[in-house]
């Protein structure tokens, strides 16, 4: 049996086995943002350590930055303090930093790929659980905590235990109106939010093969929501085409050599896995979450569950979710009135996401009383969208057109839900209080579905608005 990509990359990055039995793993790319790094830099200072590989470390700001008025100092003192901290830390430790005003600034998981920093065969870490996004390129990418950010800064290594690998095959093709977001929500719905614990997910099959890089990023992004710390897709021509010509991608002869190495790492046909599951792509419908974990979802034309029919082990959780969300048992999700529509986050804020949402928003109006905002994932995405006139489509429809950042994905900046508002959101987490109000409610779905909800004022099957 051959090796899968995870094993090959793990092997190539193994520095040594530690006395504890864990692996000292070399980190190929370390991405930094303002929330999980200041304490790590402080720990370095206290121990008199330097950054070992400033050439493999890149920083930006995304979580706390305002997406409307970006003048300094920020109106929020605490946010300003964090901004000053990352500016100071990256200067002191001599790290490349893409701050507010830099054309390369954006959500860390959007800019890594678009700058060509993210490449196949790398190990990539960031103090952020959605680092698995970079796995779309055939990298082993995972989120870490602040003490590990310190370790990666000081040693370019982490102490890690190897995980098992599960291949998830999505066969067939997708129907119209069904997107990458629906695929990952369907996977999590089937395998559960704990299903991936102890595993890396390898996504494959015809549906994944046919996806663009941006779609693959959406799928890998939410691996952590299924309990898998890391998720990836084997690199192929789609990957190489995306990378060619990007600022940090290899050039000329180097690019040809790089593709050779990248291809050699991909799981072969005879690769072995600890587990294999498969899903029928054709059976996936536009999907919406109705609960407080990303696994609590259904097809848009379905209803919330009936408690008697839920397995015993899930019943308390489902009852808690229905109560928090204000849903009855067996209530259709279609028609749920919304207060806010949010298009953004590292899951769905790339140019193809905005194009799909714009198609739905075009020549329509955001329903009165609904606050709708589009927050591009990066300055580059924003500029590309403006070149294509998408901002005008959104603005004419009544969406607010914002600057790049995480925004209402986790509401550390001024963009927040109020009270128990209901938000149709393209982000990745529908946890209690996630969008900034302790009683706020989030329904996750694709960008096209959020646009459909914005213009109709309630959860709507986007397929009815197409053609």
């Amino acid at each position, binding site marked *: 049996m051959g090796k899968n990509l995870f094993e090959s990359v793990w092997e*190539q990055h193994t*520095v040594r086995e530690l*006395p*504890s*039995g864990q692996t*000292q793993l*070399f980190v*190929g790319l370390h991405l930094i943002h303002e*929330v*999980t790094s200041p*304490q790590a830099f*402080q720990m370095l200072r206290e121990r008199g350590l330097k950054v070992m*590989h400033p050439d493999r470390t890149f920083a930006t700001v995304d*979580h706390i930055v305002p997406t409307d008025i970006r003048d300094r100092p920020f109106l929020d003192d*605490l946010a300003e*303090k*964090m901004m000053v*901290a990352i500016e100071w830390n990256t200067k002191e430790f001599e790290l490349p930093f893409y701050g507010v005003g830099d054309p390369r600034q954006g959500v860390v998981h959007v800019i890594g790929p678009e700058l060509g920093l993210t490449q196949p*065969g*790398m190990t990539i870490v960031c*103090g*952020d*659980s959605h680092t698995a996004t970079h796995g779309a390129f055939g990298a082993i990418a995972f*989120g*870490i*905590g*602040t*003490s590990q950010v310190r*370790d990666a800064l*000081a*040693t*370019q*290594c982490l*102490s890690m*235990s190897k*995980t098992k690998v599960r291949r998830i095959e999505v066969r067939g093709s997708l129907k119209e109106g069904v997107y990458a977001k629906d695929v990952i929500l369907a996977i999590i719905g089937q395998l559960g939010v*704990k299903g991936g614990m102890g595993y890396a997910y390898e996504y494959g099959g015809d549906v994944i093969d046919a996806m663009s890089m941006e779609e693959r990023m959406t799928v890998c992004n939410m691996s*952590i929501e299924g*309990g898998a*710390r890391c998720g990836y897709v084997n690199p192929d021509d789609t990957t190489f085409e995306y990378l060619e010509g990007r600022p940090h991608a*290899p050039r000329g*002869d*180097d690019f040809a*050599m*790089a593709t*050779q*190495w990248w291809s050699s790492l991909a799981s072969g046909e005879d690769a072995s896995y600890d587990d294999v599951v498969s899903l029928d792509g054709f059976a996936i419908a536009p999907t919406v979450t109705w609960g407080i*974990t990303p696994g609590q979802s259904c097809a848009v034309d379905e209803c919330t569950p009936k408690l008697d029919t839920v397995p015993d082990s899930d019943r*308390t959780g489902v009852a*808690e979710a229905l109560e928090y969300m204000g849903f009855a048992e067996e209530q259709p999700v279609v028609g749920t009135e919304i207060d806010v529509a949010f298009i953004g986050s590292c899951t769905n804020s790339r140019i193809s996401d905005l194009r799909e949402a714009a198609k739905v928003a075009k020549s329509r109006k955001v329903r009165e009383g609904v606050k709708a905002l589009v927050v591009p994932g990066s300055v580059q995405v924003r500029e590309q969208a403006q070149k294509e006139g998408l901002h005008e489509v959104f603005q004419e429809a009544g969406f607010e057109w914002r600057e790049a950042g995480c925004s209402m994905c*986790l*509401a*550390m900046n001024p963009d927040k839900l109020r009270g128990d508002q209901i938000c149709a959101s393209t982000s990745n*987490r529908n*946890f*209690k*209080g*996630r969008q*900034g109000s*302790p009683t706020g409610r989030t329904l996750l779905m694709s960008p096209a579905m959020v646009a459909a909800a914005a213009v109709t004022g309630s959860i709507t099957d986007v397929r009815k608005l197409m053609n």
Partner: protein
Amino acid sequence: MATTSTDRIRSKVQGRAVPVRGADIDTDRIIPARYLRTVTFDNLGEHAFEDDRAGGGHPFDDERFQGASVLLANANFGCGSSREHAPQALMRWGLHAFVAESFAEIFFGNCIALGLPCFVVSAVDAARLQDAIEVDPNLMLTCDVGGQQVRFGQQVVEAKIPEGPREQFLKGTWDALGQLLEDKEAIAKTAQSLPYVGGTWRKIRT
């Protein structure tokens, strides 16, 4: 830099416990994002579970559980965001060990890095422990890392910690930084062998 230190050995955590029931308790609930607007980990303890506590009746506000040093949870505890602020907040609230049916991996890794053992018990034992502590909040628990068990009263439950972290707690090497710095040559060798480091793709020819 020393890689072991006796005051870092975590062979046992003894004390009273606090039960926090429910599956899939995520780190946004443990410490809401608004408290991440900080450049230190100080003062997080008082905000642990703040939004859950606002609803009233939370065990963290229950007089009987004040001063607890062990948290008793259910499945997938600490899922979601990688924020180390979550175990930091719980540690600063006074907790030194966690016992649950299962832990989200990043949370588990963050706890190791802070020297906080996480014990995995069966669903039945998790519920048994939670029930016991509710009946008698003064019950003393002994969470034994080497013996992989939690003892309380006359009872013993099996409580697993994977071998790697177990060794780290027993030897006092859970702070990985020292070990990672030990062999800088090996790090340099791995870096050199990787074609993308230093932008020298030519090296894959050989």
